[in-house]
């Protein structure tokens, strides 16, 4: 919002750290294949601590990042990898830079979490820079709010050149004249909406949709005795909670259609 409503010349912009050629070359070599264990230092730049909890989850026995030689150290002077979490508040810019300069070259910078990548949900806040890449040269972005331990391990594997990244930028252009399919074309639209609404109000949008889809699938398939098939569906449902919701949907159907 701020970026959009004020001219860029009137806004202060942070000057990002620029790598000199020699360091960049050494870093490229490091990123390609590190061939040794790495020490990780964690810098919190104004996050909510969700990311920190997940980093600690990653180094516990269940996910055990130390299998891959990844070790969290308490000082940037020992670190090969710096993990920046949080949306980089204005107050934390200097400490972030101090941690960066304290670590020996070449070092890998990882932007961790939605806030670290782009500012996340705080991206248009007045007091954040919105992402680590605004102030530092970042090598790997690990999105997630927060990233789970598995996502963290995958991010490290990408950073250390062990695994390839899977996500790539894509742009699709739709041809004119493509029609979106109507869901359950045989069920009257208003009946479908009433059933979906009831299912959602009883079970939430995710499970409600699953139950409504099952129910509407039976209606959509048609057949001579639709009500009989609906009753059979309720009868064979093993989960009593789901059966109750299905029975409520049957009630909606009766009220909407038969009455």
């Amino acid at each position, binding site marked *: 919002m701020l970026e959009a409503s004020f001219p860029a010349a009137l806004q202060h912009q942070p000057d990002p750290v620029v790598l000199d050629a020699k360091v960049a070359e050494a870093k490229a070599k490091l990123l390609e294949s590190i061939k040794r264990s790495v020490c990780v230092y964690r810098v919190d730049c104004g996050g909510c601590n969700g990311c920190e909890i997940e980093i600690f989850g990653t180094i516990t026995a*269940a996910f055990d990042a130390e299998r891959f030689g990844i070790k969290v150290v308490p000082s940037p002077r020992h670190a090969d990898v710096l993990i920046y979490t949080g949306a980089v508040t204005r107050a934390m810019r200097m400490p972030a830079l101090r941690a960066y300069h304290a670590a020996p070259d070449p070092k890998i910078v990882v932007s961790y979490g939605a806030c670290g990548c782009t500012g996340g949900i705080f991206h248009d806040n007045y007091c954040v820079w919105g992402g680590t890449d605004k102030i530092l040269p970042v090598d790997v972005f690990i999105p997630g709010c927060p990233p789970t331990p598995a996502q963290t391990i995958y991010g490290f594997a990408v950073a250390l050149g062990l695994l390839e990244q899977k996500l790539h930028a894509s742009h699709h252009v739709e041809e004119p004249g493509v029609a*979106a399919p109507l869901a359950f074309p045989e069920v009257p639209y208003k009946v479908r909406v009433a059933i979906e609404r009831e299912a959602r109000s009883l079970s939430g949008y995710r499970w409600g949709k699953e139950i409504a889809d099952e129910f509407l699938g039976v209606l959509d398939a048609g057949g001579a005795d639709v009500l009989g098939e609906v009753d059979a569906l309720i009868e064979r449902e093993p989960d009593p909670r789901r059966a109750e919701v299905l029975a409520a949907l049957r009630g909606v159907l009766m009220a909407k259609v038969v009455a």
Partner: protein
Amino acid sequence: MMLKLFKEIRKTGCGTVGYPYAPLDLPKGYRGKPSHLEEACIACGACAVACPPNAISMELTSSQDQITWAINYGRCVFCGRCEEVCPTFAIKLSDEFELAVMSKEDLEESCAYPVATCACCGKPYASAKEIDYARRVLARAGGASADAPAAASGASAASTAASADVAADVAASLSKIDLCLECRRRDDGVAAVRHAPAQGGALC
């Protein structure tokens, strides 16, 4: 004593998960990367309005003939509001979680849809696909709301009257579907002024 400890360890087994050497066991309903079905999407923008961190955005292209739906996975907080509001179930949170990338551009995905222009003023007002979808939904709501599968036997006089009302509403909506919001408002205003004296109301 030591033997007992070893026995205990053997009984407990290995607690560490196999990932990344083995696929990870994800719980049912895991909220991973939102997957977007291009052909089911009608580019209505409901997800862009609902998205709390503005990860999803909708913008007209500079040539004004396409509307671009774009998502930035780096900003997404995986809350699932987009999935909740999508009228055509075109967006669903998948169980894909390996999203780490080396460059920020790889976190972006976009999709451009043709735009429909207003029949009266010629301004772009909605995606052509959305108009087409709305037209088909209205046609179904007008034509088929009374004869549901189970109610073929007993349609009373009251429901026939109600369905005639629905049909009139649908016909009114369909007649103005090619107009943008402003033109529709003006049209409604003109119609109201024309009908006011006939209904005994005063012109202001």
